[in-house]
């Protein structure tokens, strides 16, 4: 029987069926960070359970960490206590920690792939909804709650019902100035913020195949923003080339054996999906969001919808009121106060290169504060090695140290109430970047051009 990519990986990880139609699913990689792990470690202790497979856990400090002066002790006491607790727990239980000061510290969804821990055909979980990022490698990767973090710590397994399968195919060529971020913002705007709830999504089609690994990670990262349990892309030569030679990637004979297996990981031709959507890549234009969920996106030169179904009107108008926008309005010409380039969605070297390539020799607008937060120490070092730091500094952008930063504003990096921020992150929820902040999600290229122009523009007229 024809099988989907998702089913092939899932079935290879079923330890055994469990009562109620559930499966005991084995987890190959467990990523943990300081915010959603402390209560799970406490649960192990309270139940007097050992940590079952410490070697399968990767820990980092990212959500809460400052993005300036990381060599100094963390000033904010609660953040410091959470990071200290992670450090103590990792030492106690023998978990490898890529914490502050480590040459490979960074956002958990950036460093997993960099280390070669994210591999095709694996199952990967983390107490973070953007774990779907790792699906870019043809892995079944998804976010979990803290109770489940404790379950994986105790047994390396989860008790799960198999989600439905959805395939989203995007064929054709993306137009100039249109990036992976625009592609996924477009898909989410079409399906809505809950449009894939209950499904695991496979992204397919020639436009997806043509994406770099960084682009694929951006796409899979935002699967959760339409409610999907996760998203994945069949591994191919692009995937293998990215993985080969990384610290934890298989080597020599094991590499050949791995690649031979990974080449079997695709959806069979006759696979029947529970839902299918097809889009034309050429129909996608640079995107931006105008509301308070990621499904509220439009073409940069488009208009905010003037009509919505009656049942959605109250939520829709509340959202526009929060953002200070009107139904039917264009965003072109709106003044912007902040530009944030970072997060597990868009903080990789390719993103920094795209920004630097545009701003080289230009200046950000005087009233805009522009910060770039690299996804990891490795990205930061690479940017410095390529001289991007100087280009960015000359253009008035501040290059910070790695972390989740203003994506969720747990640390000091907050957007003030009422201010507008064009952000390359993944969520525009009310208060996401700080109480009262107003977020417009976009690609790194759109963010860079916005920073220079100081307002929302139709970027197709400003491309270098």
């Amino acid at each position, binding site marked *: 029987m024809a099988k989907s990519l998702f089913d092939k990986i899932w079935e290879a990880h079923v*330890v*055994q069926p*469990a*009562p*109620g*139609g*559930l499966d*005991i699913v*084995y987890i*190959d990689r467990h990523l943990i960070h300081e915010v*959603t792990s402390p*209560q799970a470690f*406490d649960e192990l202790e309270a*139940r007097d359970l050992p940590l079952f497979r410490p070697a399968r856990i990767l820990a980092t400090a990212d*959500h809460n960490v400052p993005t300036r002066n990381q060599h100094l002790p963390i000033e904010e006491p*609660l*953040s410091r*206590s*959470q990071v200290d*607790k992670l450090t103590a727990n990792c030492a106690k239980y023998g978990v490898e920690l890529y914490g502050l000061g480590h040459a490979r510290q960074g956002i958990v969804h950036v460093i997993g792939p960099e280390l070669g821990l994210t591999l095709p055909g694996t199952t990967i979980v983390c*107490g973070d*909804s953007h*774990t779907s990022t790792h699906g870019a490698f043809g892995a079944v990767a998804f976010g*979990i*709650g*803290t*109770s*489940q973090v*404790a*379950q994986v710590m*105790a*047994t*390396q*397994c989860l*008790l799960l019902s198999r*989600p439905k399968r959805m395939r989203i195919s995007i064929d054709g060529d993306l137009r100039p100035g249109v990036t992976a971020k625009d592609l996924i913002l477009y898909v989410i705007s079409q399906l809505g*913020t*809950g449009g894939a*709830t209950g499904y695991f999504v496979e992204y397919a089609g020639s436009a997806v195949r043509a994406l770099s690994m960084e682009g694929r990670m951006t796409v899979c990262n935002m699967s959760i923003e339409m*409610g999907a*349990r996760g998203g994945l892309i069949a591994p191919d030569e692009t995937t293998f080339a990215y993985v080969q030679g990384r610290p934890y990637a*298989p080597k020599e004979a*094991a590499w050949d054996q*791995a690649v031979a*297996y990974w080449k079997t990981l695709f959806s069979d031709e006759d696979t029947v999906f529970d839902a299918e959507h097809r889009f034309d890549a050429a129909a996608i234009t640079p995107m931006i969001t105008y509301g308070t*969920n990621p*499904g509220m996106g439009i073409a940069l030169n488009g208009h905010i919808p003037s009509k919505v179904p009656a*049942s*959605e009107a*109250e*939520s829709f108008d509340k959202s526009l009121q929060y953002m200070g926008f009107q139904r039917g309005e264009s965003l072109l010409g709106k003044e912007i106060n902040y530009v944030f380039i970072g997060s597990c969605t868009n903080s990789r070297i390719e993103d920094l290169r795209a920004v630097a390539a545009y701003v080289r020799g230009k200046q950000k607008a005087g009233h805009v504060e522009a910060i770039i937060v690299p996804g990891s120490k490795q990205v930061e070092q690479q940017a410095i090695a390529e001289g991007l730091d100087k280009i960015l500094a000359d253009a008035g952008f501040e290059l910070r140290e790695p972390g989740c930063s203003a994506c*969720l504003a*747990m640390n000091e990096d907050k957007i003030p*109430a009422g201010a507008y921020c064009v952000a390359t992150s993944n*969520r525009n*929820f*009310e*208060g996401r970047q700080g*109480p*009262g902040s107003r977020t417009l999600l976009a690609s790194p290229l759109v963010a860079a051009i916005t920073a220079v122009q100081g307002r929302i523009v139709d970027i197709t007229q400003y491309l270098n």
Partner: protein
Amino acid sequence: MEKFQTLHSSAVPLPLENIDTDQIIPARFLKATTREGFGENLFCDWRRNPDGSPKPEFVLNDPKYSGQILLAGKNFGCGSSREHAAWALDDAGFRVVISSYFADIFRGNALNTGLLPLQVTDAELNRLFALVERDAATQFVVNLPEQTLHVPATGDSFHFDIDAYKKECLINGYDDIDYLVSQKPAIEAYEQARTWNW
């Protein structure tokens, strides 16, 4: 985990769609390292002004409404995987959230917290909102063993679905970890039998 059988309560209506977990418990409150105390900041930015004073128009500040049931618009709990959202609702005294659908991760987190995510149809949800709008004191009876939601005053009765295993867990106060730990021999056998182990 607290056991759940039946609940008699009025409901607090929040008829907005796509209520995300950043609203339920904003990220800046996730710095605690224990599970307790999150109820204090449940819906903080909707409930309170920046100076800490209550926003009188928000339903949790309206003395007319009370109860252990939250009635919310569809796609409740979307966004972040933070289980703190379920802990905050639980800590604030809610035992049931009714919506016409739940985001997947929130649903799982709620069940693991002992908070019942009770899913009804869109039409049923509209009916429930109308009942509460007409009479804020309307009593509901949630019967988990029977999988019914009943309104004694009007005779309305709705059936709801729940995974059979999760239902047993809620009724008995069990959680997945007990079951998984009991399956360790099978898990070790799976590890041994696997031909690849990257």
